[in-house]
């Protein structure tokens, strides 16, 4: 058998293919994005699609499952909140073709707004829950997940974490199972969840979960590894790896692969054979609370932190089995290196223009590359809560400001992918409510932050086909908004940007600014810009530093002069040149 090194996300994609999956959908979100990206390499066997949001992705998968095909939807942890509505009810209907939802949680908030532990969804939505701890298990558990989903007529939650998604380990490859598509038969009493049917299904699903709990006792995804019986560790997912690293053979392990439902009998038997029970898990005391309901004493969250990611050292420290690590220390400090808007980023012009009106406005932000505009020197917005909120929060915020006599105008911003995700419904509400706000759609023609996924506005599908391009501007105009209150501008054109913002502040009613310029990292943009960059004439540069106010990573200031420190990175967008009153900056190349 071929053994290759794969990330958890790649292994999930491989497992889906080997399991005979036919339909897959997702909305991109770190650390889950690479699952669908990798599934697209199996497009001859799997129909795959980026959906506009996680709810749509889940419903595409649910439709396929009821239709008889094995199907999956993938999302990051917060995406599951968006998808929760259909997921809670498909917990009642059960499946036809096996159905798996993959949630990639992000303990440590590497690229997320919270650390929610989505295992808690499993008992709440009545899903089976599996937790792989390395890439081999990602692949194997996917195959098991589809079998279990069909066996118990329950959707499965495959719960990943960043460290499982993005770490790589060895995987043994297998062949694809040729699962046929099950025949679709109309069955409203199972799949049309009106009250009379839902009440009956609730009884059925409770029985299915009981059956699954009985199966959990013998489920091969759970395993016991005996070492010293002085300590018994119950753990799951990546926390198993950290526990093994920290305790070695100095403890025994109950590693749960199936974490909902958990077998009471299995846990009791394990705990009876060890002196002390430790529960080692990232995030919430999920396993711990279960163990405590069995009346078993254990050490869990009072020792192991609820915040952030675990590692072996944190585990050692929590249980007092090692001193602080012996490490080198020096006085010299490394300067901070926060992520920044790239050289040539279209958002830079927008944020600089906005900065000049700082005193007249209050701004709500959203989730995307433009989130980086919250940092100095732009301090571009005050809030970032969730996808789409950049366009809906202004409605309420404007009311609250009005009530306290604050005359500042509320601006909201989000990007093209976020607009299609959920910003459109927010915009409709703003127009419908005649909200006196300015909504800014920062359209860079790609889903940029997660690494350039196509979206409804780009005209190309995940499978690489040309598809209809949805025109965001036409959607905006279709709300019936006063056309005089809509502007489309190039964000790098500072004069045009300033004029649009000034008009928006003066206007009454809902105002929309669409900034249109493609992401500077898009291949075709890089190609078009090849060789072009700015240069700064040192004789003309007076050292006034006006150009540094746009905070471009390609431009540096040293010895009282500005200079292009990284010409290869500079895109010759010319934003810095617009800042210079001494004509010291010009474009060369091309």
């Amino acid at each position: 058998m071929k053994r290759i090194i794969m990330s958890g996300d790649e292994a999930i994609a491989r497992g889906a293919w080997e399991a005979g999956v036919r339909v897959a959908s997702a909305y991109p979100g770190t650390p889950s994005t690479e699952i669908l990206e990798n599934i697209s390499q199996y497009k001859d066997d799997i129909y795959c699609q980026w959906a506009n949001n996680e709810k749509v992705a889940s419903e595409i998968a649910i439709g396929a499952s009821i239709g008889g095909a094995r199907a999956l939807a993938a999302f990051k942890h917060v995406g599951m909140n968006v998808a929760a509505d259909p997921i809670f009810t498909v917990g009642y209907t059960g499946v036809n073709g096996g159905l798996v939802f993959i949630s990639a949680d992000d303990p440590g908030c590497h690229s997320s707004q919270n650390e929610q532990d989505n295992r808690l969804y499993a008992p709440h939505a009545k899903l089976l829950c599996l937790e792989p701890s390395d890439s081999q298990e990602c692949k194997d558990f996917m195959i098991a997940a589809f079998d279990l989903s069909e066996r118990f007529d329950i959707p499965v939650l495959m719960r990943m974490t960043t460290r499982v998604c993005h770490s790589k380990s060895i995987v043994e490859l297998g062949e694809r199972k040729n699962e046929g598509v099950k025949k679709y038969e109309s069955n409203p009493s199972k799949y049309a969840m009106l009250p009379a049917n839902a009440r009956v299904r609730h009884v059925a699903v409770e029985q299915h979960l009981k059956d699954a709990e009985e199966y959990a006792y013998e489920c091969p995804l759970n395993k016991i590894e005996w070492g010293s019986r002085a300590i018994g560790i119950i753990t799951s997912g990546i926390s198993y790896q950290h526990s093994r690293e920290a305790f070695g053979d100095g403890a025994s392990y109950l590693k749960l692969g199936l974490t909902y439902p958990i077998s009471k009998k299995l846990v009791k038997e394990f705990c009876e054979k060890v002196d002390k029970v430790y529960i080692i898990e990232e995030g919430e005391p999920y396993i711990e609370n279960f163990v405590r309901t069995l009346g078993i004493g254990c050490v869990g969250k009072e020792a192991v932190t609820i915040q952030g990611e675990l590692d072996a050292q944190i585990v050692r420290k929590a249980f007092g089995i090692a001193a602080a690590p012996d490490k080198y220390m020096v006085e010299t400090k490394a300067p901070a290196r926060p992520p920044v808007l790239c050289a040539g980023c279209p958002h830079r012009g927008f944020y600089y223009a906005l900065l000049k009106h700082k005193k007249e406005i209050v701004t709500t932000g959203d989730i995307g590359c433009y989130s980086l505009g919250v940092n100095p020197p732009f301090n571009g917005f005050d809030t970032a809560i969730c996808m789409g909120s950049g366009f809906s929060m202004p409605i309420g915020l404007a009311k609250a400001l009005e009530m306290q006599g604050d005359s500042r105008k509320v601006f909201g911003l989000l990007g093209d992918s976020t607009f299609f995700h959920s910003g459109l419904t927010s915009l409709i509400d703003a127009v419908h409510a005649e909200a006196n706000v300015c909504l800014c759609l920062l359209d860079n023609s790609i889903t940029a932050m997660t690494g350039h996924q196509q979206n409804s506005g780009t005209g190309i599908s995940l499978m690489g086909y040309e598809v209809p391009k949805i025109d965001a501007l036409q959607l905006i105009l279709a709300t019936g908004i006063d056309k005089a209150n809509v502007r489309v501008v190039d964000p790098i054109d500072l004069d045009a940007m300033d004029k649009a913002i000034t008009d928006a502040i003066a206007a009454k009613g809902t105002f929309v600014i669409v900034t249109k310029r493609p992401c500077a990292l898009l291949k075709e943009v890089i190609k078009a810009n090849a060789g072009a960059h700015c240069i700064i004439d040192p004789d003309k540069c007076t050292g006034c530093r006006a150009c540094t106010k746009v905070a471009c990573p390609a431009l540096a200031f040293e010895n009282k002069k500005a200079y292009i420190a990284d010409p290869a990175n500079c895109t010759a967008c010319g934003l810095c040149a617009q800042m210079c009153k001494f004509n010291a900056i010009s474009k060369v190349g091309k």
Partner: protein
Amino acid sequence: MTTNILLTGVGGQGTILTTKILSEGLVALGYDVKMSEIHGMSQRGGTVNTQLKFGDKVFAPNIGEGEADIIVAFEKVEALRALPYLKKGGMIVMDEREIYSMPVLIGQQEYPHEAAEVLKNAVGNVVIVSASKIAEDLGSIRSQNICLLGALVAALDLKGIDWVELVSSSVPPKTRDVNVAAFKAGFERVKAN
């Protein structure tokens, strides 16, 4: 026991490809290998750390403070930032390339140009490989990463497979010659040390 390597650089420097080639070589040598990398926001000009562990059996994929046998730094201050991860008696392989971060570019923070000397004084076993300069002289600064890979393979004394062949088949065909030359230069630099 595992051997733990931390590669650190700035988004876009190619630390991830380096680790990929190294891990494939280690798998071919029969080791258990795990690597861990965090992508996402860090690509936007932030610090990128890739961690690789190999041995008979690897459990946790990530490296804690004081646990790295070797730090490979693609940029000078990133070596400084990663220092707490180095095991006592460990080794640093570093390029002296300087890439200024936003706080430095806008004059809020100073860039410690003396970082390599500071590290040499503290650690002792520091090998400077001017990989970006070597790569630039060979024709493309982008092969800096493969030059550092050569240095790392030499530092780890990994025999038993044809690394040049592996590099050759892992990089885009157009860049093959430059990358092979960069690999060899990095390898020789450490061997000569």
